């Protein structure tokens, strides 16, 4: 009998909506395997956030787990998985999910399959599974076979929609692991608040610039448009490497993955590493002198020409309306 566990992170009692994305494939898996599905979160403050998600599961409680502490989280989860004989553990593959699952896999010395987009087959030889996972940040996929009896998977972010809460309060049991105090050595000790309001990850529109912008000063026109539209400025890796923008503005595989209503890419040709960071945008407008640039051919809308001239005209047009 398969037992499926879904790890749902909470940050000081708050469960982000995306953290529940892994629940969607987990439910489909539970249905197809006829398996029990349970949730787990760490720290007592997570209980109130998880109960509405239901139907049942565990809240792991221990003084060391008073705040995010990946080493201790991994240890605690390993004890729960062994104690309750779970055969499948899923989590969203965001920063924390990926980290906690890696600790869990390391403690149990089991393979971990990162960023799965599809569970293709659960009836392979000797209980093996076939899954599809993300490589190259999403520009390539891998068909992989998992032979271990315990299946540890993270689910690629932005792949599934989080399910709606069904309104029924779930039944959550407290699980108290044995954790040495020394594992508090990797716990959050301080938080520093920087950004108030909009960030690259949350802005409805991102005005982004690449090589074609030409200099740090030339980003002023992108800033102006972003301000007018209530958005923020982003950039490509070229702009970061040239020192035109801080890395925190970088959109892409090794920067931020964004999903705004509109992505305006100015003078960005669109290497795969950039594309995977912006492909979740609802609409993409590319502004480029080269009509054959990869990002132009992949965009929903494009304007061909000099970005400074075009942005200047767009800003003038917007100002003329008000």
């Amino acid at each position, binding site marked *: 009998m398969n037992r499926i566990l879904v790890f749902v992170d909470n940050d000081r009692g708050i469960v982000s909506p995306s953290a529940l994305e892994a629940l969607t494939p987990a439910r489909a898996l539970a249905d197809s395997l006829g398996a029990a599905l349970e949730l787990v979160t760490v720290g007592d403050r997570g209980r109130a956030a998880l109960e509405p998600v239901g139907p049942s599961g565990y809240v792991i409680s221990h003084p060391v787990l008073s705040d995010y502490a990946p080493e201790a989280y991994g240890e605690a989860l390993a004890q729960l998985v062994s104690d309750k004989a779970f055969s499948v553990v899923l989590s969203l593959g965001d920063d924390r999910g990926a980290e906690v699952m890696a*600790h869990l896999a390391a403690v149990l010395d089991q*393979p971990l399959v990162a960023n799965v987009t599809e569970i293709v087959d659960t009836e392979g030889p000797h209980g093996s599974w076939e899954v*599809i996972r993300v490589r190259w940040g999403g520009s390539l996929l891998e068909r992989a*076979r998992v032979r271990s009896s315990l299946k540890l998977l993270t689910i690629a972010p932005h792949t599934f929609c989080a399910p709606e809460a069904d309104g029924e309060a779930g039944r959550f049991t407290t699980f108290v692991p044995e954790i040495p105090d020394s594992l508090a050595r990797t716990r959050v000790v301080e938080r520093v608040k920087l950004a108030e309001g909009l960030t690259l990850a949350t802005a409805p529109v991102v005005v982004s610039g690449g090589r074609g912008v030409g200099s740090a000063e030339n980003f002023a026109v992108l800033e102006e448009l972003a301000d007018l539209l209530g958005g923020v400025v982003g950039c490509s890796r070229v702009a970061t490497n040239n020192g035109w923008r801080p890395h925190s503005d970088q959109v892409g*595989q090794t920067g931020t993955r964004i999903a705004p209503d509109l992505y305006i890419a100015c003078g960005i040709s669109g290497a795969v590493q950039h594309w995977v960071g912006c492909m979740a945008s609802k*609409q993409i407008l590319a502004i480029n002198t080269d009509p054959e640039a990869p990002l132009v*051919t992949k965009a*929903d809308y494009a304007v061909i020409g000099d970005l400074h001239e075009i942005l200047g005209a767009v800003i003038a047009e917007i100002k003329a309306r008000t």
Partner: protein
Amino acid sequence: MNILVCVKRVPAPGARIVLTDDSQDIDTRHLGFTTSPHEECAVEAAVQLKERHGGTTTVLTLGPPDAVEQLRYSVSVGADRVVLVPADSTEWDPQATASALVEAIEDLEGGSPFDLILFGNESADSGGYQVGIRVARALGRPVISGLKGIEIDGDQMVGRRETDEGFEVYRLPLPAVAAAKEGITLPRYPTLPGRLKSRRPELLQDPAEMKAGGPEQVSLLKPAEEVTETVILGHGADAAPGVVRLLEEVGLL
């Protein structure tokens, strides 16, 4: 402050990735190779820490003989010692990689541990997000991933990790392990003296043997390409009214 950085040689693809005919690998005939970006920044972070606190920077890679190219580059940007653990050119799974690295690290340390071992958060190509954590666990050292800032404060490593609002701070007792993200530093360009120095021979170790782990690659495939009919809104400044109409449709104006 003796620091070890573990790096991976990866292809440097541009706009398109082409697969080999058997779908087992990406076709690298027309591609250059590079150090995985997070790790390139980790090397820079290690060199900066060494410049501030003294000590040495060692760069270690598990990879094919050609990976000496990435090690030479590491020397040209400030690494003192580079080590190749020769392996075949197949993709090693994370468990096998970690156990070979642990063996190599224990060899290099000979009982006196590196103060800090840095990894990239995940490799650009296979993206497993786990090798550094597995190595740290095996060595019994504290580890934190996803760092965008790193400092040494006495016998502690202070790490900063970005969140939506700002950053979280971690303090790990040394010796410690950390995985860095691109942006932790801006890598420097190689210097001429560095390049000259980088001609010296690399230290080679016995080839590593791949241990069974998982998962196992069956094949690679390209995601279904969405065919986009790009609507050209116009050329040059004349396109401005069309752009403004789009902004209205999206609800931004």
